[in-house]
């Protein structure tokens, strides 16, 4: 569902829940009047995420002192069990601290790939680069996040996901 993907992406980029709701509602209000053919899923997704990215950037410009990790997290009753929800929430909190080390573009690419679930070619069209370059950015960013997590004291097999091979 596009709503969940857009909301998730905005929420990933902005830890303030109220602001994320505000931006998501603005995205869909604009979509209501701007999208000529909302049934064209590809065009609609591209438009929605382009608008969401622009509004997120505007938000960060209006609130430059609000770092990604500095806002208290709101609890969501997410996940099939309270334990899973709590774990997912804890991982998100740790991740947000690490996101400060990334550039805007790297955060966008990570959010669009993992949270919005877009393919590399779709992300490439959104951020104005090639599919190959998106793959490189992903690779580089995951490595950077890994280094940052390690610097924060998290190891490969701890509660941040573990190794399932």
């Amino acid at each position, binding site marked *: 569902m596009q709503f969940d993907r857009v909301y998730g992406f905005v929420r990933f980029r902005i830890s303030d829940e109220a602001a994320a709701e505000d931006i998501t509602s*603005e995205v869909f209000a604009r979509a209501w009047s701007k999208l000529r053919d909302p049934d064209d899923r590809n*065009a609609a997704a591209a438009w929605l995420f382009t608008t969401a990215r622009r509004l997120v950037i*505007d938000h960060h410009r209006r609130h430059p002192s609000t770092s990604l990790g500095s806002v208290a997290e709101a609890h969501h009753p*997410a996940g099939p069990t309270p334990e899973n929800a709590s774990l*997912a929430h804890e991982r*998100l909190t740790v991740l947000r601290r690490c996101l400060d080390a990334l550039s805007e573009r790297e955060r966008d690419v990570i959010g669009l790939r993992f*949270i919005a679930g877009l393919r590399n070619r779709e992300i490439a069209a959104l951020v104005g680069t090639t599919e190959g370059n998106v793959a490189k950015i992903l*690779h580089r960013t995951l490595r950077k996040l890994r280094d940052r997590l390690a610097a924060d004291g998290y190891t490969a097999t701890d509660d941040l996901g573990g190794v399932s091979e």
Partner: protein
Amino acid sequence: MSETNSLDVAIDRILRGEPVSDATNRDELQVARVLASAVSALQPASAARERVRHAVRERVAARPRVWSRLALLTMSAPRLRVAVLAAVLLVGMLVGSAYALPVLLPQIFSMFDPSAVELLQSGRARELNISDSAAGVTITVNRAYADVHRIVVQFTVENPPSDPGQPWDNGQQAKSPLTTGGSVTLTDDAGRKYGHLRAAESPLSSGAAWSGEPLVGVYNFDATRIPANAERVSFHLTIAELHGVPDAAGVITRLPGPWIFTFTLPVSR
């Protein structure tokens, strides 16, 4: 398979919840698992979903109906070609006409309310050119027209605040689109309020990068509240605020007005 392709395939499998074995990208995939496992924390709770739905409904209801089921950016290529061709033909007809008109409006208006553009360009609209300034920004109401069906007003933000833009992809500077945010209202001396029929501003705040040209608005109000026998009406147009204005630090803010204009128009019948 290259290292990045292999990683992409593995990420797909992780997002689908399938097991992955990739020794080459082991470290990256551990982080990928962390990211994938955090997704559930980003799903909207039912209360949040309802709040957003409500907010969307309110925002849509509060906005004037814009010509804006236009979205050039989202048009399919054939539609876009037809739209561009139509705009070129329209301009060609105007330029080639023996009655070439001095009033030029962004082509985008012609595409979405040609009758309003025709009115404003036909000489039937009253040239007003009255300005008001607030917070260092001057807005001019260029011309307006009234009949028993509608009142059409065109205005221009003469000196939009400079916006250096913000770094964006490929070294581009993206500027924030300037808009009135639908804060334009029309009343008359008797206190009657005229609702929006249509409205459009150019450039549109479509989320696309904006090149910085002045904001032009064409607003179309419902004239059914004009008294049946009125020959002239004294109107008050108010623009309450501008959105998307950068302050000295480059932070995007709202600029409170108001900009208020009073003018009298004959009512065409």
